[in-house]
């Protein structure tokens, strides 16, 4: 049981690392949104499922409620994160920021 939890947490940490590295490496604002918004969402999904499994180790009513709350956080993140990304993209488009094309220099 512990091994599954540790594997899930390590998967989530790898996704978080990818999100942060992408946030630092990609060339412009539109392409930075791809790793920042979505690899982080996937990473939090993995870590939350792992922690919810770990929390069910000693089964009781209170622990079950806490695990359900963890799953509720994940569901909320999955609904809220695309909306936040879309709001940021919309602000960029309205301000007239041009997307990066191949051959431009980094911003």
């Amino acid at each position, binding site marked *: 049981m512990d091994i599954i939890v540790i594997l899930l947490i390590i998967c989530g940490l790898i996704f978080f690392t990818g999100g942060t590295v992408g946030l630092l490496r990609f060339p412009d604002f539109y392409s930075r949104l791809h790793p920042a918004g979505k690899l982080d969402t996937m990473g*939090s999904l993995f870590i939350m499922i792992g922690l919810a499994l770990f929390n069910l180790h000693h089964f009781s009513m209170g622990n079950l409620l806490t695990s359900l709350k963890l799953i509720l956080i994940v569901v909320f993140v999955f609904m809220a994160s695309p909306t936040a990304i879309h709001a940021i993209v919309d602000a960029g488009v309205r301000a007239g*920021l041009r997307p990066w094309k191949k051959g431009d220099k980094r911003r």
Partner: protein
Amino acid sequence: MGQIFIYCGLFLSFLMLLSLYRAVFGPTVLDRLIGTNAVGSKTVVLLILIGLIYGRVDMFVDIALAYGLLNFIAVLAASKYFQKRRGLHDEMP
């Protein structure tokens, strides 16, 4: 198991420091907003880890939920606020 959680929390804090680079030195205002959002989404996980380390996860899960809500609303409000300000998006030299 507690040792593993402590190391995971330290690693997450290190990733948050790296994201903070984008929030501080980002060329446009929206880059800073993305950096702040990335820090916030890692903080939710870090709060749950802190709760597991101290053994009070039933209390910290509510704090994490409220923090997630606040992060979402803050990003929405900030992006709506900077939408009208054309001059702020110009790239800095």
